[in-house]
C-alpha cells in the first residue's frame, strides 16, 4: 500500500487537533461533551486517512459514487452545521451582551436619577418628621 502525502497531513492534523482539544478540556475551556464530539470527528478523519477504501462501502450504501466524494460531502455538511451552530451562539451572546449593557445603562445611579431620589427621600423624611 502506497502512503500518499495527504494521508500523512490528515493524520498529523488529526493528532494535533486531538491534543489541542485535550489541553483545552484540561484548562476548563471545553466541555466534556464537546471534547467527545471533537475526539470522534478527528478519529474518523484519521481512520479514513489510514483506510481510504473504507469509505467506498459507505459511498455505495448512500448512493454517492466514490468513497472520497462521500468523505468530502460529509465534511462539508458537518462544517455547515458547525458554522450554523456557531452563528446562533454568537447571536445569542450578542443579545445577552446588549441586555447587560442596557441594564447597566438604565440603572438609576448611572442615569443621574440619584438626585431625584435624594429629593424624594428628603420630602418623605420630612413627612415622617411632621408625623
Amino acid at each position: 500500500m502506497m502512503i500518499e502525502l495527504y494521508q500523512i497531513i490528515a493524520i498529523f492534523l488529526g493528532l494535533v487537533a486531538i491534543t489541542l482539544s485535550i489541553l483545552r478540556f484540561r484548562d476548563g475551556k471545553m466541555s466534556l461533551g464537546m471534547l467527545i464530539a471533537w475526539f470522534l470527528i478527528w478519529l474518523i478523519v484519521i481512520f479514513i486517512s489510514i483506510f481510504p477504501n473504507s469509505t467506498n462501502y459507505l459511498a455505495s450504501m448512500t448512493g454517492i459514487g466514490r468513497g472520497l466524494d462521500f468523505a468530502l460531502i460529509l465534511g462539508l455538511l458537518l462544517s455547515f452545521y458547525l458554522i450554523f451552530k456557531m452563528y446562533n451562539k454568537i447571536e445569542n451572546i450578542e443579545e445577552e451582551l446588549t441586555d447587560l449593557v442596557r441594564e447597566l445603562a438604565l440603572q438609576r445611579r448611572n442615569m443621574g436619577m440619584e438626585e431625584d431620589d435624594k429629593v424624594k427621600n428628603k420630602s418623605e423624611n420630612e413627612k415622617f418628621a411632621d408625623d
Partner: protein
Amino acid sequence: MKIFVVVPAYNEEKTIAKVMEDLFEMGYEIIVVDDGSSDDTYNIVSRIIKEKKHGLLCRHLLNRGLGAALRTGIEAALIKDPDVIVTFDADGQHDPQDILSVSRPIINGDSDVVIGERNFKQMPSSKKFGNEVMNFITMIFYGIKVKDSQSGLRAFNRKAAETIIINARDYGVSSEIIGEVKRHNLKLVEIPIKTIYTDYSMTKGTNTSEGLKILAKLIMNILK
C-alpha cells in the same frame, strides 16, 4: 403633556451640543443614549445635563447599535411616565420644530405611532437609492408600505412604546418598528418633515452599503 425626546448618539461630539441646546430651548425633556461612543460625546452630554440640571443620560458601555440604543432610550423614557416619546437623531439633520408636528396626531389621539417623512425629492441621490431600497425591503418583509421607512424622527404614544418590542440592534430597527406597528395593529401616520442636509450628516445613516447590510441581516433572520 409630557413629551420625551430620545436622542441616540454614537460618536456625535461635533453636533450633539447644538442638538441638545435646541431641544432644551423648546422645553422638551431629553434622554440621550450614548451608544458606547469612543469620542467625547459622553462627557459633552453629561456636562450639559449638569449645567442645565435637566435631562437624562444613559450610557452603553459598549457600542450596541442604533436599535439597541433606541430601545434603551424608550425604556428609560417609560420610567418617567411620558405621554409622547419622540426619537430624534443626534447628527443635527432634524428640525426641532418638527417634534411638535409629529407629536400632534398622538396628542389629538389620532394615531399611536407617527413617522416623520423626509422629502425624497430633496434627498441626495446617494441616499435616495438606499432609502428606496429599504422601503421596498420593508414592504416585502413586513407587508406594509410606507413612504419613508428609515426616518429617524418618530413619535410613539405610551401604549405603542410599551407594546413595540425592538430586537434589531442595528439600522434594521427602523423597518422592525414598522413591522411591529403592523403586528400589533397600531395606528400609523406619516407627517412630512424638514431634513437639514449638511456635509456631516451626509456621511451617516442609510447609504447604499448600509442598505445592503440590512438586507443581508433580514434574509439571515428568515433562515434562522
